[in-house]
């Protein structure tokens, strides 16, 4: 049993000639993508990772349009892209916030070390 069933399902579904994406698959993929996009936007991904957050929103719209056309394969694929775009936007937002926080604390430590007459790096 593969540990990462979702990827296996995605790759096998994309084979086209073997399996066709069904309506339920498309609905589930859109629901997951929508949740991921909302989570990313709540985490301010539009401020910190705008290209990825915008790509997520665009792919989600494409997925919804394909769903109304009853193109289940197009819809599922676009939704899968949207979900990973949103996850990437969230991850990049976390990384950039963490880097900004580290820079700020590091600047404070450097100043304290300088005022204490200590070298800029290493043990006190």
């Amino acid at each position, binding site marked *: 049993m593969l*540990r*990462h069933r979702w*990827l*296996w399902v*995605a*790759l096998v579904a*994309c*084979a*086209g*000639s073997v399996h066709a994406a069904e309506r339920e698959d498309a609905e589930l993929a859109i629901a997951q993508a929508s949740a991921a996009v909302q989570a990313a*936007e*709540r985490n*301010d991904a539009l*401020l910190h990772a705008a290209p990825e957050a915008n790509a997520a929103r665009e792919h989600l719209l494409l997925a919804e349009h394909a769903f109304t056309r009853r193109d289940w394969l197009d819809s599922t*694929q676009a939704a*899968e*892209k949207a979900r*990973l*775009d949103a*996850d*990437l936007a969230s*991850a*990049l937002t*976390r*990384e950039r*916030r*963490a*880097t900004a*926080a*580290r820079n*700020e*604390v*590091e600047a*404070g*430590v450097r100043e*304290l*070390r300088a*005022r*204490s007459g*200590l070298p800029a790096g290493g043990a*006190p």
Partner: protein
Amino acid sequence: MKTLAVPAIALGASLLASCVVSPPRSDPQLVRLQDERARLHSDPRIAMHAGTELRIADTAVDLLVQERPRLDERAFRHGAYLTERRLRIAEASALARYEEQRTNELARERERLLAQAPARVDPVRTAPGSYPPATYRAANDHHRRLAALQAQLSGIESRLDERGLVVTLSDYQFENGRGEPRATTQRALDSLANAMRTDPATRVAVVASEPGDALETRRAAAVRAYLATRGIAPERVNADYAAPAVQAPRGGVRLVARIDDAHYGLTDR
């Protein structure tokens, strides 16, 4: 006929041999993804802090390589897109953990330096009652509390610097040509009000880009009024300390939050 048969047979045999012995050409996209995976594994910051995201990305690359012969072009491009995203997610997640760990280490060092610092190192830098606070310990405490406040904000641009916690509302966050904040801006201000309620010593100055300009002054007043409807006392949003040091964006409004323990008799905090 005989003179042509031998070269033709030889040509056919050499073509057949080349098909059998030459290795299959690697797909450039697959090569790029495999190279990217190798780069992540060779970066110690990522290898040491990678979680399940990198294992999932590894599996995605392996599956794509394995299934390539069976996939049509569209399916392969889709799989390659997903795999590339998985690799980038793994990298960003690992780097975030690395930075967070470094921040914790630096914060502990900062506490250690403050505890060890002799009195002369933590001097009065500015006049008592002015901002930033007069001692490093107080500055450290205010920074920590403003950072905690910033962490509660949602949907709003903010920056923590020597002026305090500076929150920016741009022109597009207000109704066109009017003073009222948009619905999404109101939700963002709700998060600010909720955060201010968790620290009663927080005060905010609301600054318009052009004092006296009718629209921007109305917008600044609308922000103060909105925060008041969310239970923030008017004296907490009427601070004027930021006016000389802060410039709001054109058509926008800037809020500067600071900790003011002395104003609220919280000097023992």
